[in-house]
């Protein structure tokens, strides 16, 4: 039985790793890659079957990215596409019996959120220079306090929202299963709802990342 809150850890080069999270992450990555490769292995001008789905997803995410970031954001499209596909697969992986979502570990969600935020500020400074740093001190220098709190809050909210939703979903699945043999209907209903939550959370995480990136990449004149 799944032990809630207890993580199997491994030590490697003096560092501690959550083994289950890593394995589940690799499985998710493998699934995403497998789907992507299978669907795009034999690209046709007139799309059929799996190509339609993957193509549609990528086109949709690409459009989202380009509308949020403008033409300069083209190079970030693969990042956004990967983020969404990985998150949705990771969120749904926990719904498969004996599997767990890599996103039920704060290390994963915070890792991704920090990755995004570091990227936001790096790109902001790289693409806008002093102008980007200056905007933290506007309209008055004192606002830097609020702005810094906001910037710190961004990755934390991003990470905890996803982590909380997925972990809660998985805990409830386990609890509903433990509760009683007759509780099949709530179990199934919750599973369906978790499916929905997984999709929604993946979308929210991606959309917010895009919004933060837009702040740094998009020209203020546009």
């Amino acid at each position, binding site marked *: 039985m799944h032990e*809630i*809150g207890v*993580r199997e*850890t491994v030590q490697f080069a003096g*560092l*501690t*790793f*959550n083994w289950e*999270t*890593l394995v589940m*992450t*690799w499985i998710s*990555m493998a699934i*995403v*890659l497998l789907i*992507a*490769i299978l*669907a*795009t292995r034999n*690209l046709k*001008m007139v799309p059929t079957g799996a190509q339609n789905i*993957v*193509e549609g997803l*990528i*086109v949709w995410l*690409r459009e989202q990215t380009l509308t949020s970031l403008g033409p300069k954001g083209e190079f970030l*499209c*693969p*990042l956004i*596409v*990967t*983020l969404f*596909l*990985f998150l949705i697969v990771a969120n749904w992986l926990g719904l498969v019996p004996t599997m767990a979502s*890599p996103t039920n*570990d*704060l*290390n*994963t969600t*915070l*890792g*991704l959120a*920090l*990755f995004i935020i570091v990227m936001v500020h790096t790109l902001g400074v790289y693409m806008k220079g002093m102008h980007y740093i200056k905007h933290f001190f506007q309209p008055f220098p004192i606002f830097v306090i609020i702005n810094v709190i906001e910037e710190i809050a961004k990755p934390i909210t991003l990470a905890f929202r996803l*982590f909380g939703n997925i*972990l809660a979903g998985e805990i409830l699945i386990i609890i509903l299963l433990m509760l009683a043999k007759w509780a099949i209907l709530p179990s199934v209903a919750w599973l369906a709802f978790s499916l929905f939550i997984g999709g929604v959370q993946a979308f929210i995480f991606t959309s917010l990342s895009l919004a933060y990136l837009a702040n740094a990449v998009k020209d203020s004149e546009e």
Partner: protein
Amino acid sequence: MIDINATLIAQMLNFLVLVVLLRIFAYKPIVKMLKEREERIAGSIKKADDDAAAAEATLKQYQEQLAGARVKAQEIIDKAEKRTREDHEASMQTTKAEIDQMKHAAQQEIQRERALAVEKLKGQVAALSIAAAEKIVSKNIDAAENEALIKEFIDQLDKDKIGDLPC
């Protein structure tokens, strides 16, 4: 439950690897294919437009040619009609002239013949007159006999029928 450890770094790296792999295996080929498709559609649409324009131009050209041909045909017909009419008129005129000429020649001929006949007659009348005078002189006749002689002479004239001409 929410212990942060080195997994965080590992997850960042995992994600980075996935981004790179997906970019190579899915994103790039799909975007390339999308571009190709876009170009192909744009090309097809452009080609269709061009074809339609070309067809229209050809049609216009044909119509113009047809109209030109029609005008030319009408011109040819008109010309032919005109020429026929002219030919007809010319031949009529020639014929008329010929007839006039023939008429004129005939009249001249008649005139000449008549003049000739009158001349001949005049000559004969003179000769006869002289003959008659000789007869009168040689016979030495009186007035009555003279009259008889002249009557005879004139009767002879009638008998010989030389006075057929209307003189």
